[in-house]
């Protein structure tokens, strides 16, 4: 449902290549009745303001660069340092609170995305995933599998823990051929 809204919003704004999209999914357990409530919020916004086109533009084709491999590979260690840095600075002193953590996940993912973009790695697309949860004597397992090109694409992840919450951050970098 949220994805349709996201796509609609993106189509209305209609700018290719410079649109960022942010999605967050949250699970909250209702204490008294044992029911779970889902809330979904999506935010889409343009990076370049001042564009007044109402007529949808046709997709702009990327020019052929005749380049098969990237000039610069995805810097795994640099990105891991960024993740470490951001997670510790934002979450060092925090306690788990539903409202706070909801905002925190969105903020952290935006911050990480901005910093990775600053690295200016040409022709790479990024996906940043942040999960923050309460430590409450439960087991959680997160796994991922990717179908991509081993030589060019990579990922970097980091986990952070304090007394009341844990956070897992992953950045995937995929080369756009």
């Amino acid at each position, binding site marked *: 449902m949220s994805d349709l809204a996201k796509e609609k919003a993106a189509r209305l704004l209609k700018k290719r290549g410079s649109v960022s999209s942010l999605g967050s*999914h949250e699970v909250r357990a209702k204490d008294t009745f044992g029911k779970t409530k889902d809330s979904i919020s999506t935010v889409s916004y343009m990076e370049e303001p001042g564009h007044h086109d109402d007529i949808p533009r046709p997709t702009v084709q990327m020019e052929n660069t005749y380049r098969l491999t990237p000039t610069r590979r995805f810097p795994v260690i640099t990105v891991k340092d960024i993740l470490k840095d951001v997670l510790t600075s934002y979450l060092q002193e925090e306690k788990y609170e539903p409202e706070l953590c909801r905002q925190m996940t969105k903020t952290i993912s935006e911050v990480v995305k901005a910093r990775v973009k600053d690295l200016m790695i040409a022709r790479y*697309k990024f996906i940043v995933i942040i999960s923050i949860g309460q430590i409450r004597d439960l*087991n959680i397992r997160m796994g991922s599998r990717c179908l991509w090109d081993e030589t060019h*694409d990579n990922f970097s992840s980091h986990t952070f823990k304090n007394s009341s919450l844990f956070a897992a951050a992953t950045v*995937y970098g995929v080369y756009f051929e």
Partner: protein
Amino acid sequence: MDEDQSAEETTFVVDEITTVIKEVVESTIGNSSYQHSKINQWMSNIVESSLNQLTKLGKPFKYIVTCIILQKNGAGLHTASSCFWDNTTDGSCTVRWENKTIYCSVSVFGLAI
């Protein structure tokens, strides 16, 4: 080559992917209760089968499938994702599935080649 046809083949179709993933999760965890010893196997199964089904769709996409399985214990979990990509061709979808004891969330990100 028809432009319309190529446009259809290279956009991320959320509904199709959601259906595929739901089937995979159902067939793997279906009616089971949370069992610590089986978690590893379930996780691998779900992710591998999802990827297999996605490749069978035959679209020119790179996929990233992430899966989170947790016990229902009253604790909360927040997940956010931020993506730097091409909005017209790339997309993501998340399938949340639950039963009495397990909570499972599978996200698929598709990036056009």
